[in-house]
């Protein structure tokens, strides 16, 4: 019991000491904390190249079965299929197509038309209208992304019991992330019917301009603050532990057994104080007496 008490006492003294140390070095703690916080903020804001991510949502639905009894099962099957879609999206089949599209993003405005022929009464086949090539339109800027790079940039998230899954693309500019997400989603929509015999792929929501996803400035700043605080405390405690000077009466009076005759507080007296002035004053006084 007594031992316990002693231990508790020494513990509380340690805490008290720690608190006193902390108060004594409060300025350096603040400087370290705020300083590293600012550094963390600056690194996140200016040093690290930011990454932007943008998401498109895709729904794959097999419309085959209209039987209400089988509907639930079909839905479950669709949900389970999502994992397969996930793998397909990140497979070269889709990504190569997306890569091609990104390199030359064109949109077909008018499909190519074959030439039209009419067989006349004389049996001669005559061309009524010449064949027309497809009219395409440039659909945004082109980006150079290989399928491998796209594989790294694209990720797919699913939610439980939902047939909608989210395709997220991460890139160094908001526009690029948007373009990648949309290109991959479109390629998927285009290719999947042939691959899996799925007839109904809907892009529920197209990717919009990417938002900054990395670095998280708040997190970096907070990390800097915490790290600064920890470093400051560590330095203070280490320095205190390594300080072998006399700082308490305890050592001199208890360990060395010396009598405490008194304490002199730190004081400052300017050098301008002169003894002789006092002496003169004294002399004058003496003369008067």
């Amino acid at each position, binding site marked *: 019991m007594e031992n316990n008490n002693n231990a508790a006492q020494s513990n509380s003294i340690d805490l008290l000491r720690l608190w006193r140390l902390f108060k004594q070095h409060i300025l350096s703690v603040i400087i370290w904390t705020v300083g590293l916080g600012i550094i963390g903020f600056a690194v996140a804001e200016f040093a690290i190249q930011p990454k932007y991510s943008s998401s498109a949502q895709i729904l794959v639905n097999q419309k085959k079965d209209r039987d209400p009894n089988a509907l639930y099962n079909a839905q479950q099957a669709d949900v389970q299929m999502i994992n397969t879609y996930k793998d397909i999206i990140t497979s070269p089949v889709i990504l190569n197509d997306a890569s091609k599209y990104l390199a030359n993003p064109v949109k077909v405005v008018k499909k190519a038309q074959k030439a039209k022929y009419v067989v006349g009464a004389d049996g001669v086949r005559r061309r009524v209208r010449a064949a027309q090539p497809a009219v395409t339109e440039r659909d945004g800027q082109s980006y150079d992304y290989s399928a491998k790079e796209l594989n790294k940039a694209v990720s797919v998230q699913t939610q439980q019991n939902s047939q909608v899954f989210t395709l997220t693309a991460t890139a160094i500019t908001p526009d690029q992330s948007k373009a990648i997400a949309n290109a991959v989603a479109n390629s998927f929509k285009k290719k999947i019917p042939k691959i899996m015999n799925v007839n109904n792929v809907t892009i529920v929501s197209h990717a919009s301009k990417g938002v900054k996803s990395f670095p998280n400035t708040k997190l970096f700043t907070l990390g800097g603050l915490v790290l600064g605080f920890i470093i400051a405390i560590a330095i203070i405690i280490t320095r205190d532990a390594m300080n072998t*000077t*006399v700082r308490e009466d305890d050592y001199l009076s208890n360990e060395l057994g*010396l009598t405490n005759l*008194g304490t*002199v507080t*730190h004081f400052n007296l300017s050098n301008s104080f002169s*003894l*002789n002035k006092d002496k003169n004053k004294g002399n004058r006084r003496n003369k008067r007496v």
Partner: protein
Amino acid sequence: MALFKKKRGTNETMKHGAKLITLAKPKSPIAEQFRTIRTNINFMSVDEKVKTIAFTSANISEGKSTVSANVAITMAQAGKKVLLIDADLHRPTMHQTFELRNVVGLTTVLTSEADEIYMNQVVNADVIPNLSVLTSGPIPPNPAELLSSKRMKAFLENVSSHYDVVIFDMAPILEISDSQILAGEMDGIVLVARQGVTQKAGIKRAVEMLEITKTRILGYIMNDVRTGADGYGYGYGYGYGYGYEQDTKKA
């Protein structure tokens, strides 16, 4: 290499003298702390008369001169006839502190061939009322021999009969061997420790060395305590000081 070498000590006191706060601000809390020290030293001499007291420390620049000068002043203010001797022949400061000439002093007495020396020729009598100061004198090449000479012993006996208290400002005990020799001749030794500067090992060794000389260690004085700093200062000196000030106002 100077990068990791801490600068040891200062020459502040040697250039400008110790700070006589007991004279400059007699009502300050710090002056009151010195009066407390005076009282405590008085209590120490109840059983055995303590007439010769030396102030020393483990290393240089820990406040020996400041503490010894101020304690001497408070003793003089209490009406005792005090002689303050600068026995630090390596870094003498008392002549600076009391703005005296250091042409004659302790070394003059010790090196003189004469059988009789008139004290009033070497001692600066009544620098302030009741306080006489004997400066170090010209610094000799062999201070240890001087301080351990028979002449020193005779001189000590002589002065202690003339004054109520003789206070020695000694060289640091760990650095200069003469201090140990001189300490053996004293009635009592007061160790000055400076908070945050004096090494624990240093003061321990100083105590050991003083125990070898069989000198009575009256106690220690913790110097340069910073209130609010770690350690257990609590600044109780301030409480005393304010009380004193109020008293004087009432009076």
